[in-house]
């Protein structure tokens, strides 16, 4: 079943994507803001939605807000915050029982109305007590992000690899930058976002798109938008710098490794060959890295790779015994070199293609997956073709195409963390 997406200009600089589908028992609606990743602004963006979600003029606290969602057959409204290349995507996500299953009661209008309340009528224009407590929660969350050593290592590696580039700014921002956000500056920021920030709405469900467009248009008519919106900045592309190798110490029982490669700025990584390469090299449990470095050589506990085609960066991260860090790094480099030399088996190609085919087919089976897929495509101005339409391109990719992508990767950064004692033990072995 192929679904098509209709696109509407809801307001200047605010698109609405509507996916009409009868496949699911639920519908969903997202209101997103799209902003350039910026170290000064990131914590304000991360803080805004949690404060808004504490209450509206009509439902001024958690209990009354929650009761209004209960009344909409348990509709869920929550905050979401993502980083896509160099764009911070954040807003309110809701999902609710589709009108076909609510015993004749219409739910969507109530959800649209609640979305409007949250966006336009925060309690007391954003109460200071809500601001204070959510600022504390965010500060706690930023500190807690250090507890996940794996993602923390990746974040540190990116900071070392891309200093000064928006790509290195973390999703939540830093505690220092958060400190300077005040209730006054956050209120002002909210006003600016509503009047001139780029916005993207998404609806998925059984309602005809024109109806949804009408409902949202009427509901959000109160927003006065500036005619001209500032476009998002183009993604910064840079070639590999001189190789940086940095090792830091932390209280960890297992060392963590993150390696980063860049692709030349004038090389545009082709979609299909890029994703097949990424899956085949380190993206799956049948990849070269997983089967060779982890399974065959037992050099690590976990390993995976990710490729950001638009930014032209590939990262490999692994959990390793400190004594094996250097051998693991060498093996990862060697596996990439094998890809580049075209030493790729038929089975590896088939596994990667089958995996991607499964992923693309299954993404059409989840409304959340479809939202993510179409929002990303809209953000990067790609045609809104259904995911299953990309399968053909994937199946056409040859081992030579994969090798051609691999050959363009240039190692830029090798970053690792390990406990003090382990490293001494590791170097004693050398």
């Amino acid at each position, binding site marked *: *079943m192929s679904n098509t997406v209709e696109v509407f200009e809801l307001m200047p600089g605010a698109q609405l994507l509507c996916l009409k589908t009868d*496949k*699911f*028992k*639920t519908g969903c609606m997202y209101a997103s803001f799209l902003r350039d990743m910026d170290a000064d602004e990131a914590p304000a963006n991360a803080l805004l939605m949690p404060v808004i979600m504490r209450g509206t003029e009509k439902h001024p*606290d*958690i*209990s*009354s807000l*929650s*009761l209004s*969602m*209960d*009344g*909409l*057959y*348990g*509709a*869920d409204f929550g905050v979401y915050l993502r980083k896509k290349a160099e764009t911070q995507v954040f807003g309110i996500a809701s*999902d*609710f*029982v589709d009108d*076909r*299953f*609510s*015993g004749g009661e219409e739910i969507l209008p109530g959800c649209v109305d609640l979305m409007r309340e949250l966006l336009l009528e925060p309690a007391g224009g954003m109460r200071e007590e809500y601001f204070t407590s959510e600022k504390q*929660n965010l500060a706690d969350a930023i500190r807690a992000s250090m507890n996940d050593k794996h993602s923390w290592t990746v974040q540190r590696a990116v900071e070392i690899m891309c200093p000064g580039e928006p790509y290195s700014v973390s999703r939540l921002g830093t505690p220092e930058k958060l400190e300077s956000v005040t209730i006054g500056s956050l209120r002002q920021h909210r006003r600016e976002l509503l009047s001139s920030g780029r916005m993207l709405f998404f609806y998925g469900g059984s309602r005809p798109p024109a109806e949804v467009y009408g409902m949202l248009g009427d509901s959000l008519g109160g927003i006065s938008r500036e005619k001209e919106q500032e476009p998002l900045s183009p993604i910064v592309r840079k070639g590999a710098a001189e190789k940086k190798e940095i090792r830091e110490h932390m209280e960890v029982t297992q060392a963590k490794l993150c390696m980063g490669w860049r692709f030349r700025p004038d090389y545009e990584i082709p979609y299909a060959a890029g994703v097949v390469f990424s899956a085949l090299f380190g993206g799956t*449990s*049948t990849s070269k890295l997983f089967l060779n470095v982890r399974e065959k050589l037992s050099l690590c506990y976990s390993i995976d790779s990710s490729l950001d085609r638009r930014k032209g960066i590939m990262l490999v991260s692994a959990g390793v015994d400190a004594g094996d860090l250097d051998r693991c790094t060498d093996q990862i480099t060697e596996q990439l070199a094998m890809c580049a030399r075209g030493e790729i088996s038929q089975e590896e190609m088939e596994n990667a293609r*089958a*995996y991607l*085919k*499964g992923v693309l*087919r*299954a993404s*059409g*089976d*989840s*409304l959340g997956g479809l939202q993510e897929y179409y929002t990303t495509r809209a953000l990067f101005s790609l045609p809104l073709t259904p995911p*299953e339409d990309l399968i053909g391109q994937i199946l056409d990719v040859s081992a030579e195409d994969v090798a051609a992508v691999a050959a363009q990767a240039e190692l830029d950064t090798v970053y690792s963390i390990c406990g003090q004692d382990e490293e001494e033990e590791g170097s004693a072995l050398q």
Partner: protein
Amino acid sequence: MKEKYYPSLGETVRSDVLDNGLTVFTVPREGFSKVFAFYAVNYGGMDVRWKKGGRECSSPEGTAHFLEHKMFDMEEGSADLMLAANGAQANAFTSGDMTAYLFECTDRFEENLDILLNFVNTPFFTPQSVEKEMGIISQEIGMCEDDPYWRAGHSLVESMFGAHALKNRTVGTKESISHITDRVLTDCHSTFYVPSNMILCVVGDVDHDAVTEAALRHTPRQRAEKAERWTGDAGVPFAMKETVSKMEISRPVFSIGFRADLPPGEPFLECGILGDTASAAVLGPSSELYGEMYADGIINGSFDFSFEMHEGAAYFEARGESDRPRETAERILEGMDRIKKNGIDPSIFSVIKKADMGGRIKELGSFEMTAWNICDLAFRGEDYLEFSSVYKDLTAEGAAGLLLDSVREENMVLSVVEPV
């Protein structure tokens, strides 16, 4: 083949009971690429004592879970890897009263179903492989013990149900699993993995008859006798009213439980929904009490609650992180005083019922939860998808009655894990 349509949910369920007693359900999902298969055994961590052929039998704590781990071993290799090579994502779990093997795929469903049915019905244990698994499961037990929520929850159940099978740890203890041998596993497989004690449920765009035929090919022809579950007694006095243990954590984690003494034979579905809506009325985010406790900083976003119901045992549980867990318990009891005085507002209760029903309708979007719920209730002789008809008979008085009977000081146990 029987076919039942549930108009308010837009769901259809096709079913068959084979001559050997195996129940087969398929739940069509037209237009979906993925197919989900769920093969469940009415046997879990609770089942350490049972009766069969008039004989009383027992096995070490943790056997059902150990067996689940070992079932993936086949003479020709690991079923897990065979399914992965076919593009299927396989998994399994053991709960207190169920063991289930499952996979999801978008391609080669029939082949994958054959693998699933084959490995679950074919024990292949050796003393060496059992010995090796002991180490892996010991690690898992260690991981559970390192999880403060698991620890708080387990102490709670242990204190509340000292003489009921619910107190048994599904993963077992390092000591208990040391008594598990290939012989124990073989015996338990032949006792519990009999068709009349199992259900196969497939959610997706599949041919029901083909699923039934596959089940026929892989299961024994003969109907075997079912074991009789021993649950013990849920009504004995509490072992402890409060337990405290210490761990490397930044904030205390608590679990507060209230034992509910339900008359035997209460229908699970109806009683479960009453328990869920009643607990939401007193502890849910839309309740007065939740709003007050959140505003006062006694609870935070980690606060959660549930109504748990098993054979012969039921309880309310509230859990989360808090610097003041004892105050949380006191506030819940104070909230109950208000319900005693004023009851539950019927208009709010009707909104909570709506939200609960909406939650269950939304959950039908998950293939796994749909199969799990259908099998769980079918093992108890009930039909999960009848849930939407339960709500009309639920009243605010009924919910308040259940709460007032159960959520009382004398039924309460508090379990806290504190930072070192």
